[in-house]
């Protein structure tokens, strides 16, 4: 998008000579929609999460009584009201907190997921910064947020916060490794790190009717998909891997001392990270913006629709996990990562390599 805007503005005679302004405006024009998307994503995802949890527990969730001052029909305005409440709430900084770091931590967490979105494609054209290392870039950028989590826990000067951030850091740093390794088969099959080429390699159909997505490519890819998806759920600290927050043990983990706007930033980043994990799984294994019926309903607008709906389905699966599995213990979490996921991802890499060598 940045290149597109720069070319667009440079083609207009009147403003051609202001190169630096054009550059900055183009970057802003590509960046601001990302922020808008993150906000809308969080609003919708919180509502859906509450509704899904409610239905799974045989409740109704947020409800309203028609129009009026209530939360709208089926409570659709509930999260909007919550967002306004968060924005206008008092911003509390604990007296014994390390003030500078306390203020810096939400920024780092938010920026971590914001810059990851810069490389995330919604279809072959709709991507803020298009370059040929997309997958690797998103993996790297999603590891920046960990620093923010550690700082949030440390600067709060609260034991719950510190325990939460320690757990979170250990968890994210560990699960990053199987998550990255289980994405390697995609790179092996498509021969590229660019999202565009990865999706392009999945066009067409396989076995007659199935779309030629990487998850249908060979049996090992199904394992790789689940390895990545579960490791991704662990990376975004969601149940059953929500030890860092663990309401029943740690109050709210590393977010305990935060309130108002800063806490909203954590939430924004958390739902954005969920979207990124689900989105990378979609692009890598489920054909990205390609339609599930090969050859039909493909195109720019349809592409965005397919990508967002597949990603939303994976986010729904994450919510489903939340009400299905009990929380793991720390030692179980680490054993699962280092003794099952890590060897599992090596096994998958070798398996995919052999399969590709023999079957092709």
């Amino acid at each position, binding site marked *: 998008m940045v290149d597109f805007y720069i070319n667009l503005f440079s083609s207009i005679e009147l403003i051609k000579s202001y*190169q*630096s302004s054009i*550059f900055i405006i183009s970057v802003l024009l590509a960046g601001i929609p990302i922020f808008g998307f993150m906000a809308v994503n969080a609003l919708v995802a919180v509502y859906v999460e509450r509704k899904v949890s409610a239905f799974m527990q045989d409740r109704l969730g947020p409800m309203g009584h028609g129009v009026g001052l209530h939360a709208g029909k089926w409570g659709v305005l509930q999260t909007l009201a919550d967002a306004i409440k968060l924005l206008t709430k008092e911003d509390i900084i604990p007296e014994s907190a390390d003030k500078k770091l306390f203020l810096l931590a939400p920024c780092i967490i938010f920026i971590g997921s914001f810059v990851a979105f810069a490389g995330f494609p919604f279809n072959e054209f709709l991507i803020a910064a298009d370059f*040929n290392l997309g997958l*690797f870039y998103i993996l790297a950028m999603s590891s920046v947020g960990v620093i923010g989590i550690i700082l949030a826990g440390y600067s709060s000067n609260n034991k719950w916060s510190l325990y939460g951030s*320690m757990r979170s850091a250990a968890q994210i740093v560990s699960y990053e490794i199987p998550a990255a390794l289980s994405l390697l088969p995609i790179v092996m099959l498509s021969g590229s*790190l660019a999202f565009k080429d990865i999706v392009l390699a999945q066009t067409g159909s396989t076995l007659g009717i199935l779309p030629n997505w990487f998850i249908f490519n060979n049996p090992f890819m199904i394992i790789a998909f689940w390895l990545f998806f579960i490791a991704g759920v662990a990376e975004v600290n969601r149940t059953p891997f929500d030890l860092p927050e663990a309401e029943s043990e740690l109050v709210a983990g590393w977010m305990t001392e935060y309130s108002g706007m800063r806490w909203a930033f954590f939430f924004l980043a958390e739902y954005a990270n969920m979207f990124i994990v689900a989105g990378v799984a979609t692009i890598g294994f489920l054909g990205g913006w390609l339609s599930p019926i090969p050859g039909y309903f493909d195109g720019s607008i349809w592409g965005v629709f397919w990508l967002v709906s597949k990603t939303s389905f994976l986010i729904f699966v994450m919510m489903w996990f939340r009400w299905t599995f009990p929380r793991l213990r720390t030692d179980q979490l680490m054993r699962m990562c280092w003794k099952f996921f890590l060897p599992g991802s090596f096994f998958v890499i070798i398996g995919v390599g052999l399969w590709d060598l023999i079957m092709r």
Partner: protein
Amino acid sequence: MTGINLIFWFIAILTIVSGSIVVLSNNLIYSAVSLLFTLLGIAGLYVFLWADFIAITQILIYVGGILVLIIFGIMLTHRITDVTLSQSSNQQILGGGIVLVIFLGLSYMILNTPWLENSAVEPQETIKQIGNLLMIDYLLPFEVASILLLAALIGAALLSRSSK
């Protein structure tokens, strides 16, 4: 001054200022945090050299791995609620003198070297070239490095095992 130049100067100043804070700050955790900005700044400078792969690797390994370990180490080696972790900078005059000498020497070298100017065209697909070089021309050093890392990994596993 074009927009790119503006960003270059922003990143360069960010790198230098945060690098100075790393050295001069009395608070150990502040040093570690400013190291974050130094590392991000250096990654940005790599992008200006069209070394996009190195830039991302820098962030993945140094920010996502090593810096987390450093902060973890600081937090684990002190009391859990102790916010005032301090470090001292002794011999500031001597150190400053050495830094000045190195700075002047490097500046002299940079200004007096006839630099080879590469063409101003962005190289395509840096990662393919890196892959080819690693697997064809520099395969032996690559393998030796991987054996070294494997040895370190086994060593770490051995150390962390409870002694029986």
